[in-house]
């Protein structure tokens, strides 16, 4: 629980150059004769330092969109720019957190965090102090030399977030990072992530199927529909930051989530009440 003395009014004006620019992107998988259209004409700009959440049902292509932005999958049409450069391979200054923590069982928590440093060809010893500091911030100070299988699910995902943050990326892509956690752990991690973003102002793209989570965290919520995967609506979330979990009880929060639920109902994703 935290409430700043004077909640900062965050700026809504879109800067001239977006950090991530997705324009008219389509993606289809060719499986013989019947090509399946996964993403249909997606256009989305993310400003530097903006927190965007994508919410949508399974099969709407939200994870595929993230992988395309990450340069892990090619697009079929359209183009994606990150920091004014066309994405053909994973861009620099980018880190990903997946739903599963994919920590390496044979490495300690510290060595798992430093793996990203090794991958990037940087010197381990330059990052050890930062890694320990990061892990301590995330409540893993006593577990630096433990192995992943000695940690709980929430701790493992915290370690995975530290692994993403070790190289201080400008762009953080999170693919349903808390989807496998229990509700209480998820609340904790939501609060921590909001605080992290508020303190560092990284450009953050967060994929989820949790409507509450998306509204609580994001500046803008992108609502996606499926068959084919497309953007149904983009909703600005005007809730002052820093946010505490109690904002979820406020009427304005309820209005946002009701609006999104109604949208999904009209799209036939969920049954109308």
């Amino acid at each position, binding site marked *: 629980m935290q409430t700043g003395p004077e909640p900062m009014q965050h700026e809504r004006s879109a800067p001239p150059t977006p950090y991530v620019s997705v324009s008219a992107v389509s993606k289809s998988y060719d499986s013989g004769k019947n090509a399946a259209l996964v993403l249909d004409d997606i256009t989305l700009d993310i400003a530097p330092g903006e927190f965007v959440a994508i919410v949508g049902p399974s099969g709407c292509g939200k994870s595929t969109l993230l992988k395309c932005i990450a340069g892990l999958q090619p697009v079929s049409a359209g183009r994606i720019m990150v920091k004014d450069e066309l994405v053909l391979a*994973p861009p620099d200054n980018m880190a*990903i957190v997946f739903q599963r923590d*994919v920590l*390496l069982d044979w490495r300690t928590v510290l060595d798992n965090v430093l793996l990203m440093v090794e*991958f*990037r060809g940087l010197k381990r010893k330059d990052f050890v102090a930062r890694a320990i500091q990061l892990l301590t911030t995330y409540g893993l100070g006593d577990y630096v030399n433990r192995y992943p299988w000695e940690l709980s699910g929430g701790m493992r995902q915290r370690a995975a977030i530290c692994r993403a943050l070790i190289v201080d990326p400008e762009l953080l892509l999170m693919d349903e990072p808390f989807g496998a956690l229990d509700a209480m752990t998820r609340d904790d991690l939501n609060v921590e992530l909001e605080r992290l973003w508020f303190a560092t102002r990284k450009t953050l793209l967060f994929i989820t199927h949790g409507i509450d989570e998306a509204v609580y965290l994001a500046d803008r919520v992108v609502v996606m529909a499926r068959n084919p995967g497309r953007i149904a609506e983009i909703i600005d979330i005007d809730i002052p930051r820093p946010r505490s979990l109690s904002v979820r009880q406020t009427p304005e929060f309820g209005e946002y989530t009701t609006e999104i639920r109604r949208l999904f109902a009209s799209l036939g994703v969920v049954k109308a009440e």
Partner: protein
Amino acid sequence: MAWWRRSEYARTVVFVLLLTVGAWELAVRMFGIRTFLLPPPSLVAMEILNNPGFYAFQSLYTIYITAIGFALAVIFGIGLAIAIVSSKFLDRTLYTLLIASNSVPKVALAPIFVIWLGTGGEPKVAIAALIAVFPIVINTTLGMRAVDPDMIDLARSARAPNHDVMLKIRLPNALPSIFAGAKVGISFALIGAIVGEFVAGERGLGYVILTSQATFNSPRAFAAIVLLSVIGTIMFFAVELCERWFLPWHVSQRNARAAL
């Protein structure tokens, strides 16, 4: 309590072995089975104890051939698997060829190896390595492929070089499979060594069995067979011991350090 259970397991093994040997001894004596058909275990034991130097020498030779063959199989097996996983071309050619030739009865090649490599230790090592390499290369390849795709994406997102992905992700990920293959491989290597000694040799336990058969010296043949089973068991557990050292993280090895 764990040590007690383990010691009970050991007691069970000893009990079953003693029971079997006892039944064997009793059967031979009760039914008056002739020694050249089935010598009693007591006679086999006497045979070994009366010629300790001879059996030690022959055993060491077979162990030596098996160990070298197995070591070559491990080196080539892992090397080939790395090549197969790294290259689509080798995957289509070499791996396909390996899978196809796996069904060839490889011991049948032993006489050919004698033609190629002579009657010394080389053909025996070669045949041991050849049979042992198959389970190792196939298991290692499967283990290196069975990496979580998210893990590979994570490495790609950090622009990890290929050798990092191989050495820091795929190879350690494959270690449990490598050891599974190695445990099969070590038994195969021993079979290979004996077959090699059968075909052409003047040393080793396989040679001892073959020459005993020629003179109907069954106690000697049985002595060699008993030693071979002891050697095979010890070698298997030696590989398992290495597994424990190498894989402290693996699910099958995790101790009571409870997850939180």
